[in-house]
């Protein structure tokens, strides 16, 4: 039931104006700039170049490399977050002993500043003075190049992402699990269904809509990753762990190549939209099947 009252304009306009100003201004500015050749250092007068910035980017192997790296980080990290998060949420929902304490503890990483997390990771992963090195030395692998070799560095970034954002998945899935009705499980217990059957037959299908939403949010957010990478590896070694946002930052803030950077951010937007749409299109039949 909604009603009509002129005062509604007073309620909505402040928020509407703020978001309009902050979203439409940058949109206009960067979309028009993306079709121009515009550099601050060295300063050259802006010139309309059509799609040149876009074609230059699409032909730049670095762009594809960066997009690929970002995708690897995002997909592997979100997959791990989902699997671990679901397992922990199930355990908490099943009233594991000490559940109350776990809940507070598990929430914590989400609220820690990503730059601080990355700095801690640098200490823990230090190849000579870090505790992980000592652990690996016991197993006979001293001084592993955790942050200076591509595969290890990617793994380290993914591990940090998992550490930080699995709590979000736990939080959401736990809230979802608590809304599931008890009677279905009672019926399943009467039929002597094993916990394994109950999970795949009842829990997982009923949790599918929430799962889809949670993974979607995490995927979109993961593509935006910059702070962790910025501090942990700075994109290195070379450009092997550079992500899309970091690439845009380097081009825009270090080289002041404005037209190019604007085009890059729009390609990024298109890229992320395509991934979101494909993801939803793939999962739609499953969602409808279980409705």
């Amino acid at each position, binding site marked *: 039931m909604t009603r009509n009252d002129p005062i509604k304009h007073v*309620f909505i306009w402040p*928020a509407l104006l703020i978001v309009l*100003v902050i979203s439409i201004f940058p949109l206009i500015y960067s979309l028009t700039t993306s079709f121009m050749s515009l550099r601050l250092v060295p300063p050259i007068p802006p010139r309309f170049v059509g799609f040149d910035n876009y074609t230059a980017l699409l032909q730049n192997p670095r762009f594809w490399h960066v997009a690929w790296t970002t995708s690897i980080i995002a997909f592997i990290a979100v997959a791990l977050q989902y699997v671990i998060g679901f397992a922990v949420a199930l355990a908490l929902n099943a009233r594991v002993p000490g559940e109350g304490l776990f809940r507070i503890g598990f929430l914590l990483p989400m609220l820690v500043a990503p730059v601080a997390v990355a700095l801690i990771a640098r200490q823990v992963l230090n190849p000579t003075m870090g505790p992980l090195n000592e652990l690996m030395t016991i197993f006979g692998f001293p001084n592993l190049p955790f942050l200076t070799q591509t595969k290890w560095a990617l793994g380290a970034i993914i591990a940090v992402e998992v550490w930080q954002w699995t709590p979000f998945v736990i939080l959401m899935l736990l809230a979802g699990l608590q809304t599931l009705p008890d009677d279905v499980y009672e019926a399943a217990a009467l039929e002597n269904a094993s916990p394994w059957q109950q999970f795949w037959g009842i829990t997982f299908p009923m949790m599918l809509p929430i799962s889809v939403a949670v993974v979607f949010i995490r995927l979109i957010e993961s593509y*935006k990753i*910059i702070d962790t990478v910025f501090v942990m590896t700075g994109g290195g070694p070379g450009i092997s762990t550079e992500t899309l946002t970091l690439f845009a930052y380097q081009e825009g803030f270090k080289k002041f190549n404005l037209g190019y950077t604007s085009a890059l*951010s729009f390609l990024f937007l298109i890229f992320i939209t395509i991934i979101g749409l494909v993801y939803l299109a793939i999962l739609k039949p499953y969602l409808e099947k279980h409705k």
Partner: protein
Amino acid sequence: MSVRTLKGNGRWWALAGCLLWLAFTFFPLYWVAITSFKTPLGVVGGPTYIPFVDFQPSLSAWRELLSGERGQFYNTFIASTIIGLSASLIATAVGSMAAYALVRFTFRVKLLSALLFVVVAFGGYLICYNIFRIGQALSLIYAFLAALSLAVASSRLRLPGPVLGNNDIVFWFVSQRMFPPIVAAFALFLMYTEMGKIGLKLVDTYVGLTFAYIAFSLPIVIWLMRDFFEALPIEVEEAAMVDNVPSWRIFIGIVLPMSKPGLIATFMITLAFVWNEFLFALFLTHSKWQTLPILVAGQNSQRGDEWWAISAAALVAIIPMVIMAGILSRFMRSGLLLGAIK
């Protein structure tokens, strides 16, 4: 006892898994905490784990940090606190108003008016800038005002085409979060620079950064508070309406007090987001209004492996949010966040 409670061995396996995850979660935090109490020699000499047993804790890193001889810690902390508190307070207030309006009042926006807004904003900017040769900042402002007034005026006309309702407006707000923030951060930096040229200084100012944070928190606030307001019983408000209480007094006197837990939780979630935010602060500030994440990130390149000092700095950024997590978990148990995902 619920049917879903684990029995027998499964219970202990689950407990073992949870403990393992808890160790993984807490070890880095424990590590940073003890490192901040180590001496330089204690850090370089290899990893040590237990204070008083492995190493003698020392307050030197903290003393150094708090004496302010290493960078402007106090200023940055105060800037972060002021920006964080005011941005989340304003965002929660403005966002709750909008969320309430979207739950209780009817909105109808014609699609053509919305399109007109976008077209006029783009066209106006291009015409002002390229044909009349007005500066970029003024062109943007003129184009925005023209687009807004035309869109509002046109919504009074009888326009054909589809009409957008409350849900579409909510979707529009929330979809702002899908945007890669780099698009906005970079363009905002350029726009703020342009505004600076016409005398409106926004880069590295309180207003500039806070405004950006308010705008980027609003989608979350509206999303969370809308679910919360929807769950409130409408009967109380209807009773007040029968007595001819004006809507704004219903909102302030009845609705807000009823939704206090929701408001507090939303405020804290927004505060955590603003406090930890890195990208906007990186682009929009450089000295005076720099926030903690930027300072903490800079420690690494400035100091190399001085882990004792870096740990103390990182803890300053972490501790306020840890205290908040304790408070937030109470709300979590009360089932508040349940509504947010439906």
